[in-house]
């Protein structure tokens, strides 16, 4: 409690700093549902994938065996499917019903464009000290990749998962070999997602020096003006040039939200890294 009070008393010294909204409440909730169900799916999927390993068996016997594992795997899968469908519906409602511009194309779109291609090469040149750091827009190319990787993964893992869950039904229109293939697809794509999220996404988004130890914007929805300016200079300048910076103003996140977000975020990262270690040990151990 002493720490908390101290933090609150410190707050006025930063009062001058402005905060800008990056993510809406719905987007933050979507990310929360996504990472919660993803951790659940990974934690229940990995023991099945590496069922020969000692930790998988220990885990299975600890929670009540395979029956419990598959129940929660399916439960998280259904929740994530619903969240995914709500997101897709939301995107199409914004684009087709509200006629919102720039969803499928433009500077704020998730769809890749020519600037992203230039940014990849520009960024790599900067890594090697061969050029200036690219000026990123609202969504940088690796963030778009994260989004589409999840999108593609949802369809591939989801479809192959449901094909196994309801195999006799899917067998009506899938060839026989596909029933064998769906397990290979499901487990390899799942493994890719797990390895990617728990190593690449964690580092790119949270653990790299610019954001270390965690980028809080996905939890609080807002970021400081400095962060906005340095991380997404092109977007900042564009919004400023349009004179719309004020419309993006948010409030500094309260201390409880920051602390709560840190607790949740660190837990997620810890579970993720633990699963990553177990995965790698089982993958290279077998």
């Amino acid at each position, binding site marked *: 409690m002493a720490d908390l009070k101290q933090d609150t008393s410190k707050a006025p010294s930063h009062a001058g700093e402005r905060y800008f909204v990056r993510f809406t409440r719905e987007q933050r909730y979507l990310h929360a549902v996504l990472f919660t169900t993803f951790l659940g799916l990974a934690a229940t999927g990995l023991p099945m994938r590496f069922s020969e390993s000692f930790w998988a068996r220990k885990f299975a016997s600890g929670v009540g*065996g395979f029956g419990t594992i598959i129940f929660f795997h399916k439960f998280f899968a259904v929740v994530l499917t619903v969240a995914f469908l709500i997101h897709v519906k939301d995107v199409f409602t914004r684009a087709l019903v509200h006629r919102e511009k720039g969803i499928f194309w433009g500077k704020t779109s998730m769809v890749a464009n020519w600037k992203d291609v230039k940014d990849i090469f520009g960024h790599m040149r900067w890594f090697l000290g061969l050029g200036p750091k690219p000026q990123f827009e609202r969504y940088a190319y690796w963030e778009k990749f994260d989004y589409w990787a999840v999108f593609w993964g949802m369809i591939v893992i989801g479809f192959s998962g449901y094909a196994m869950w309801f195999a006799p039904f899917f067998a009506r229109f899938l060839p026989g070999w596909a029933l*064998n*293939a769906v397990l290979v697809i499901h487990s390899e794509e799942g493994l890719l997602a797990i390895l990617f999220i728990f190593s*690449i996404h964690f580092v790119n988004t949270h653990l790299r*020096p610019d954001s270390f130890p965690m980028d809080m914007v996905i939890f609080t929805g807002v970021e400081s003006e400095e962060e906005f300016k340095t991380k997404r200079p092109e977007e900042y300048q564009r919004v400023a040039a349009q004179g719309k910076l004020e419309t993006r103003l948010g409030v500094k996140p309260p201390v409880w939200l920051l602390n709560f977000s840190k607790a949740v975020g660190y837990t997620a990262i810890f579970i993720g890294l633990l699963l990553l270690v177990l995965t790698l040990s089982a993958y290279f151990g077998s």
Partner: protein
Amino acid sequence: MKTASSIALVFGALLVLAAPRVALAETDCLSCHGDTSQQDASGKNIAGVDTSVFHASLHGSLKCGDCHATIKDYPHPDQVTPVKCESCHTGEAEGLVGSVHANRAEHPCTSCHGNAHAIFPKTDPRSAVYPLNIPHTCGACHGNDAMAKQHGLPNVYPQYIDSIHGFALSKEGLLVAANCQSCHGSHHILSHSDPQSPTYKTNIPKTCGNCHAGITANYMGGVHGKAVAAGDLHAPVCSDCHTAHAILQPTEATFRMQSTPICGSCHKDKLSTYRDTFHSQLGSLGGYVETARCWDCHGAHDVLPASDPRSPIAPANLVATCGKCHAGANASFVQYQPHANAHNRKLNPALYFTRLFMNLLLAGTLGFFLIHTILWLIRSRYQQIKTRPAKGGKNG
């Protein structure tokens, strides 16, 4: 007449004189041996006989001297020759010859039959060889770790007593439950390596078939039974899958969990392809014993090749076989290959290329981003150190 009667008298006296000395009566023996607590001069307990038990026993009508034939006088020597049971029990004695228990000094009759003065018919619960008492009787030696180790034998008593046969016998008191003697015989017990033994590999189906006649008939019709009958000692008999002593109820979780590696110890390639499937993945996690094990699809005793129309894995029977677990299984569903090999391009090309594509996707994506992320980390850290004093906040 006088002459005749005196001749008879003389002859009678001669008869009495010529006859051996009157045998010791039971009462003479019991004057010492009737008291179980009595000790001899050296302080040893003398062998006491409980006459009430003895007279009710099988040998109750016999006189002491019938068995203890060398004892003629009182007092008798300290060391007496052992009783020879074989003087009456000739068949049993013959049986012991050549058996594993042939050494009479190590295995006297009483080691199995118990107190010689309390022998009861084997149908009597008081008998040491009454079916429900046999495991305990044999277990006196065969449940003893030191003895087992000394003779290079497994300690089988605990295995048996926790087996389905042991439970039936000890918990239900089932007289027909297999006890030691049901499989090993009684007097002419032979090593399992002896072709004459009922526990010799090729004799096992017949031995188990003494009770499990239906199963044995099924087994003899399957590939394993035929192979064994043809002299193939690699083919499994009952005990290879069920074990000899620790036999479990096959529907029990423990047995379902351990059965697959048993089949896999011969069918190595099939085990390895089975391991790649969902059946195996979830089966090995436990708690879900319903998952298909080898014999759920192939049958247990009458295993037949897919080419045999009676086989559960014959193409025409697959819908029914898979349908046992998968409600709604149809002709298309059963094209699923439970032993597909994703590493074999010729056998499973579609699966092979699916796996190859997925692996390339995985390696490509991770490979690119791994390099990308490492370079980025190094560059950002370098940048951060270089510009640390400059403004830019904590994430500058």
